[in-house]
């Protein structure tokens, strides 16, 4: 458990994408010479036909050597020397399935596979040994005597000793690490029980004793390894899905050179480079616009929902999105120096402030390990004191260690976490951190970001009533000519209202201002107020203006569309008595309107990233367990500061890394369910602890009294493990 936590901590500390980008670029550069398989993500495949369709299409494509679909991971690996992902994506998409390029360097699948196979192998070996030893043990329990019993013990020992050495390795090495660090983890008593049980059984066998615990030692390995495997699986599934999200964003920039544009990894950019940013692309580095005008969406960085105009000389930060016109940017800071990296440094600081959360399993093992050792040692002393029989005293101590051994304890947490995160995964939530579920169960205060979290960050026309019905086709034709989000929203609304389009002459987009065309001799325009000679007024709500040649320009207002499930999620959270706060970097009127629509009393507008983190910290200091839900760079510090955090899959990479849970779908309603599932999981974990303690309370007195038999140890161990697993499965 503690190792897992440490490991996760390492992963979380690499929250700085810019720091990751450098080694990533090196790996990409190193791999450039050698031929690499192309990996495509296929999110929509689900059946046998899908597999053969995709594979057949790829095999038929010239240059493809082999293509293998992995349905579990929803990926296809293609060996096609000389071809690139851009060549293959259309081939797959022609068969009707979505395909996205994955960056193979960002996927560490092979290493993870090896660890998984390693644990499976140990489970297989100990399972084989356990079954064979059980066959022999049943004979001993049912009364095999003298020479027969000794022979059975010898054969059991011959199978058990190598098995314990091989299958017990994960426990031995982890116990050794714990001891070196001066701790008593769960693995120290496990290793001690394994060693003591094997040693005493060998001794008893040599002296043809009645009881040998070979079966118990191997069974212990088997059950505990299953717990380890479940634990590993849960984290591996989450990690591979999280890696896939990162791998989907292949970090590339287009550098302008005399010979034309060349695509380069973002990490290779240096200040002074000129890069081209196409409309719709994310700005890869900080810089100053050298050429071109456009509008910039800064919502991920500041939470502002209104795009801002950008002209030569304007300063852009990495992470912003270019909307309308192509831009050429002179890089001023890249990689470590960019504002993106500086913000992620804030995240790292907040991370270390949150400190190390002590999981339920750790608390249980802290209580448990000393108790078990004390119990075994005192029963040894007691027996030696009263009888003076060393052999019998050691026997009793070994029996106590075996009976109390945390078979069920080792399964109690992983089984529940596997069941609960499997359930949440099916509902579209990805648990990245091992202890996130437990922390989620503590939550009593939920902080939401606005743009991109409660809202989609996609505008929606308030009403198209202002446009005369006869003019709607013209408006649609204008709106269709631009890829600006407001135009797209207008076009969608008009199409929904049943408008058809007309031909316009001389249609052209003026980046940063709008779009104009000629219709029946009039000039028609759609765009910014000042461009159309209208007064925008004081309101900060997004608006676009439509001029149809005659009369005054028409004002079209836009609001941000609510994320599906946002209303019901907030309602359920409020109904469950939790405090809900809205923190947004956007201007007050917009935030107020949303807060009223959702029935939220607590909201703050115009909050800077540092203030967000500070607000969350204040709440935490005041004793609240805060769940932060956010997607932007301006939220990352707050996400890391909170007790537990969730970000949608559409969030920026840095925000996803900083959060514990990623919401895969668009719907926000799983958030409130997740809180309930987490509560359920926590009570299951506690019940599981209670069950295993109960078994111990029943069996330990027998062991201390010297009445424990190997049969009793085997029964207690398997029954408690099965009870705990069944109890965990109730969560599914």
């Amino acid at each position: 458990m503690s190792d897992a936590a440490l490991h996760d901590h390492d992963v979380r500390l690499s929250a700085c994408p810019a720091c990751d980008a450098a080694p990533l670029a090196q790996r990409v550069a190193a791999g450039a010479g050698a031929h690499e398989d192309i990996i495509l993500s296929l999110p929509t495949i689900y059946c046998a036909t899908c597999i053969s369709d995709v594979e057949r299409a790829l095999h038929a494509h010239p240059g493809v050597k082999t293509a293998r679909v992995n349905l579990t991971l929803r990926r296809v690996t293609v060996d096609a020397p000389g071809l690139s992902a851009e060549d293959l994506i259309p081939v797959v998409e022609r068969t009707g399935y979505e395909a996205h390029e994955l960056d193979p360097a960002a996927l560490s699948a092979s290493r993870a596979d090896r660890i998984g196979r390693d644990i499976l192998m140990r489970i297989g070996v100990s399972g084989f040994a356990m079954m064979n030893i059980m066959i022999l043990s049943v004979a001993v329990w049912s009364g095999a005597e003298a020479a027969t019993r000794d022979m059975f013990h010898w054969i059991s020992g011959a199978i058990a000793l190598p098995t314990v050495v091989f299958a017990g390795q994960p426990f031995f090495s982890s116990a050794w690490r714990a001891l070196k660090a001066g701790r008593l983890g769960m693995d120290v008593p496990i290793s001690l029980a394994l060693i003591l049980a094997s040693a005493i059984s060998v001794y008893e066998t040599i002296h043809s004793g009645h009881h040998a615990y070979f079966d118990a030692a191997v069974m212990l390995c088997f059950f505990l390894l299953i717990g380890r495997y479940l634990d590993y699986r849960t984290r591996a599934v989450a990690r591979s899905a999280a890696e896939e999200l990162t791998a989907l964003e292949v970090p590339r920039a287009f550098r302008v050179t005399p010979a034309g544009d060349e695509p380069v990894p973002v990490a290779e950019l240096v200040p002074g480079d000129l890069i081209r940013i196409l409309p719709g692309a994310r700005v890869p580095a900080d810089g100053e616009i050298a050429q071109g005008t456009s509008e910039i969406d800064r919502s991920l960085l500041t939470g502002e929902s209104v795009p801002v105009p950008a002209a030569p000389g304007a300063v852009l930060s990495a992470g912003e999105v270019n909307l309308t016109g192509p831009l050429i940017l002179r890089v001023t800071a890249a990689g470590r120096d960019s504002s993106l990296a500086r913000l992620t440094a804030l995240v790292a600081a907040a991370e270390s402030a949150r400190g190390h959360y002590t999981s339920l399993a750790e608390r249980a093992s802290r209580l448990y390990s000393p108790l078990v050792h004390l119990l075994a040692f005192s029963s040894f002393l007691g027996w030696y004191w009263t009888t003076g029989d060393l052999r019998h005293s050691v026997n009793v101590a070994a029996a106590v260690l075996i009976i109390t051994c945390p078979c069920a304890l080792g399964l109690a947490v992983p089984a529940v976490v596997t069941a609960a995160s499997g359930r949440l995964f099916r509902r579209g939530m990805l648990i990245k951190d091992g202890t996130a579920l437990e922390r989620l169960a503590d939550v009593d205060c939920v902080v939401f970001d606005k743009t991109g979290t409660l809202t989609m960050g996609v505008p929606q026309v308030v009403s198209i009533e202002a446009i005369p019905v006869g003019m709607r086709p013209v408006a649609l034709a204008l709106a269709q000519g631009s890829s600006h989000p407001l135009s797209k929203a207008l076009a969608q609304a008009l199409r929904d209202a049943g408008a058809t389009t007309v031909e316009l002459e001389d249609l052209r987009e003026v980046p940063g201002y709008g779009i104009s065309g000629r219709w029946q001799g009039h000039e028609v325009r759609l765009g910014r107020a000042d461009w159309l000679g209208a007064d925008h007024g004081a309101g900060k709500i997004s608006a676009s203006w439509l001029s149809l040649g005659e009369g005054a320009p028409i004002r079209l207002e836009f609001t941000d569309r609510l994320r599906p499930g946002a209303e019901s999620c907030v309602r359920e959270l409020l109904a469950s008595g939790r405090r809900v706060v809205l923190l947004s970097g956007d201007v007050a009127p917009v935030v107020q309107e949303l807060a009223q629509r959702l029935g939220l009393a607590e909201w703050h507008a115009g909050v800077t990233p540092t203030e967000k983190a500070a607000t969350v910290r204040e709440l935490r200091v005041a004793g609240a367990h805060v769940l932060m839900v956010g997607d932007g760079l301006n939220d990352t510090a707050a996400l890391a500061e909170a007790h537990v955090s969730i970000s949608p899959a559409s969030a920026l990479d840095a925000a996803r890394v900083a959060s514990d849970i990623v919401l895969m779908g668009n719907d926000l309603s799983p958030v409130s369910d997740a809180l309930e599932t987490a509560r359920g999981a926590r009570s299951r974990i506690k019940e599981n602890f209670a069950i295993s303690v109960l078994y111990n309370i029943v069996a330990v007195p027998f062991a201390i009294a010297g009445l424990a038999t190997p049969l009793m140890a085997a029964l207690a161990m398997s029954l408690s493990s099965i009870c705990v697993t069944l109890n965990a499965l109730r969560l599914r």
Partner: protein
Amino acid sequence: MEILGILIPVSLGLGALGLLAFVWALRGRQYEDPKGDAERILSKEWDDRPKP
């Protein structure tokens, strides 16, 4: 009881055979895509000859 001399090695041998099969399957990467393999068996595509 002489029969034990045959039965015990036989049972151990059968168990070891199972273990070997498991190790072979594990080495052959047959646990990589359990969902896909469950679906692939339904496809008729490679019924008459193995996939090259």
